[in-house]
């Protein structure tokens, strides 16, 4: 009987994906001589993690804005705490509406914890949010908002959005331990938690931070009586991604929906500009 050489230990992992079934082989050391066909299927642990995140992306919450698709090509991963930061009129709330609309349109039930009590059902319905799939919570202070968010996470809803409104946030920034606790809850229950805030509040608990910066508003017309607000342009920057490069940015144009002015509402691809380098960085994330 041939003696087993323990210097090369290989594990054969049968990985059952959603679409196919692959055999992945990885080893402790590079083998001195492996058949080329087998060597091609050798992957590092990093490769496996990337593949895993890709596979998980199939279960991720979808996004339906081209600019967001650039930032999150696989959608919003579950078990993450995404912090969306932006000043007044920077398009932050519009992004929240867009994410709620995308999630509800595919049949997911979502929660909006609205600390400022600023949610407008009419505006949300225009943004294609299916209101019957939206649970709207209206806490009066940050403490109640955090408790409601934690309770909502345990309820099994796939996307929980905590909107802290406009500054000043009633109740301050909240304790760092509270945000860590929410992150742990989100991971336990595989929920995507989105915190929309005028300034950074989550600290180290946020796994992804997106900052929205107001660029300029576009008006049409000459004098006040026939002047119309047509669009607001803002820039989204990926401020932080845990375990990946940050700094990627895209431009976003948000159109003003004013009843009779219904033409030209679809966003053209030209409105979204992003450099190839930043896109690659996001893909790696």
């Amino acid at each position: 009987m041939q003696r087993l050489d323990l210097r090369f230990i290989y594990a054969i992992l049968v990985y059952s994906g959603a679409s196919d079934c692959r055999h992945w082989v990885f080893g402790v050391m590079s083998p001195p001589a492996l058949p080329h066909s087998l060597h091609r299927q050798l992957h590092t642990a990093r490769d496996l993690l990337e593949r895993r995140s890709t596979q998980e992306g199939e279960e991720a919450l979808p996004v339906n804005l081209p600019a967001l698709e650039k930032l999150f090509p696989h959608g919003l991963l579950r078990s993450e705490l995404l912090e969306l930061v932006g000043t007044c009129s920077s398009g932050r709330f519009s992004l929240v509406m867009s994410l709620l609309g995308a999630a509800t349109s595919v049949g997911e039930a979502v929660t909006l914890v609205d600390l400022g009590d600023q949610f407008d059902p009419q505006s949300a319905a225009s943004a294609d949010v299916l209101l019957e799939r939206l649970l709207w919570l209206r806490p009066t202070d940050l403490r109640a908002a955090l408790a409601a968010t934690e309770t909502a996470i345990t309820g099994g809803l796939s996307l929980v959005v905590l909107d802290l409104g406009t500054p000043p946030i009633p109740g301050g920034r909240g304790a760092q331990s509270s945000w860590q606790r929410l992150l742990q809850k989100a991971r336990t229950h595989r929920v995507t938690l989105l915190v929309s805030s005028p300034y950074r509040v989550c600290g180290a608990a946020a796994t992804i931070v997106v900052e929205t910066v107001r660029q300029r508003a576009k008006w049409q017309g000459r004098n006040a009586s026939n002047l119309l607000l047509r669009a607001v342009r803002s820039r989204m920057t990926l401020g932080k991604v845990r375990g990946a490069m940050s700094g990627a940015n895209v431009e976003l144009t948000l159109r003003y929906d004013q009843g009779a002015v219904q033409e030209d509402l679809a966003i053209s691809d030209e409105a979204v500009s992003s450099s190839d380098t930043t896109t690659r960085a996001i893909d790696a994330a």
Partner: protein
Amino acid sequence: MQLDRLLAKPRLACICCPLFPLAARLRSEPELLHEALAIFEGNGHNARVIAATRAARQAGVRPGLSLPQARALVPKLVARARDEECEHTAQEALLEIVESFSPRVEVGSEGIAYLDIRGLGRRFRGPTPEVELGKTLIHALDREGLPTRVGIASNKLGALVAAGLYPTPTLVPIGDEEAFLSPLPLERLSPQLGIAATLKRWGIGSIGEFARIPAAEISSRLGDAGRDLHASARGLDLHPLVPRAAPAGFREGMNLEWPLVTLEPFLFLASTALERLCRRLDNRGLGCAKLELSLRLEPDGFHERSITLPSPTHDARTLLTLVRLDLEEHSPGAPVTGFTLVAIPDRPRSAQLSLLGPAALSPEKLATTLARLFALLGPGRVGSPRKAEGHRPERFTMTEFQPPPPPDIRSRPARARGLLAVRVLRPAIELEVETPKQDGTNNEPTSLRPLEPQKLGKRAGGAVRVAAGPWELEEGWWTEAPVRREYWDIEMRSGDLYRIYRDRSSHRWFIDGIYD
């Protein structure tokens, strides 16, 4: 022949809880189980012991002793007055558990129920399935804190007598009821006093001797009451089993030994009552849709509250939180001497899970979550938003959150239109606005300042860079409070985009929206 006998003869199980007042009290206060406890009836020197725990009985406490006599025997005797509320809820709990075996249950006297067990024997294995059924009944009731005995026979009297015998469950074979009852003393039939005296004069001492007298002779001498008694002695039931109607609500409660002034001790007692209530609801596959709380106050009076839940739940912790929040908001204002909790049940939501679509919400989990959120945030702050009729942008309605089931197959979302959303300020914040002309001919805002800057932040206000408008809004002109507004979209020098309006009735300016 066997089938004919089975069809002709009903099979009844008598479930009897001995020392029922004691068992009911121990169910409400299980921590007293190993104490020397006596239940008494009456006041002052007329107070008599009617039941006692084993520890008290071993010390010589017997039913009929006065309370001072019992205390003389056991100085550390725990005495509790008979509590009708406890007994009522214990009786309800007993009936509900028995009804989980078959819906045909007749209410007997205190702690006694009759169950029609025809056909139930097939569910139980063993040489004598009816005995197995009896054991299962005893175990189920024991879990609820009600020690019971079971007798099975073809008539109520036979079952009741069998329930009083050892070992339990006692089975009387079909057709043997007369022979089973025959040697028993006549007192087992509980005859009326007049009839008992007559039969004693006749020299009849046992049920068998009474049954051997011809029925016609008994009927002619003792009337209808004697005829019914004679039929019972022969093992016949003249009155068939009458199943009880399902109750509208589930009830728990107790009378307190001393009045409670603060909330925490009451919540401690209420939590155990709610746990029992939720267990009973759970046994029936129901949830609490509405909780009615009735507090008896000192010296007399009631404090009644009704808590409607957003979704049926049987989570005791959630119900307790709701009770606490409600009582904190609506204090009874007097010491509490007793309480009753009534749960109005409803079927919990059900859902069909999808194989390929997004994961559906667990109805039970969602119901519990909604109830907790309701308890946390209060009424009117949890729900699903809806657009309201009318033109005022701040208007909305809220409905119960009942998401439709997800689609069968997961799909990709449609491309969004990328619309600018607006944050609605509720209530609108009043502004001080400068316009080019004060005479009202040109109301275009040139600068503004919020009268409550703490609500909009320190940087709010200043010079207006662009102003577009006005758009007029008029609503409810036929009412006493019509709405007439001039709306403007403005861009501040800081870049903030606001939606403001001028109230044409009061000529005051407000900001009611932020484009974000």
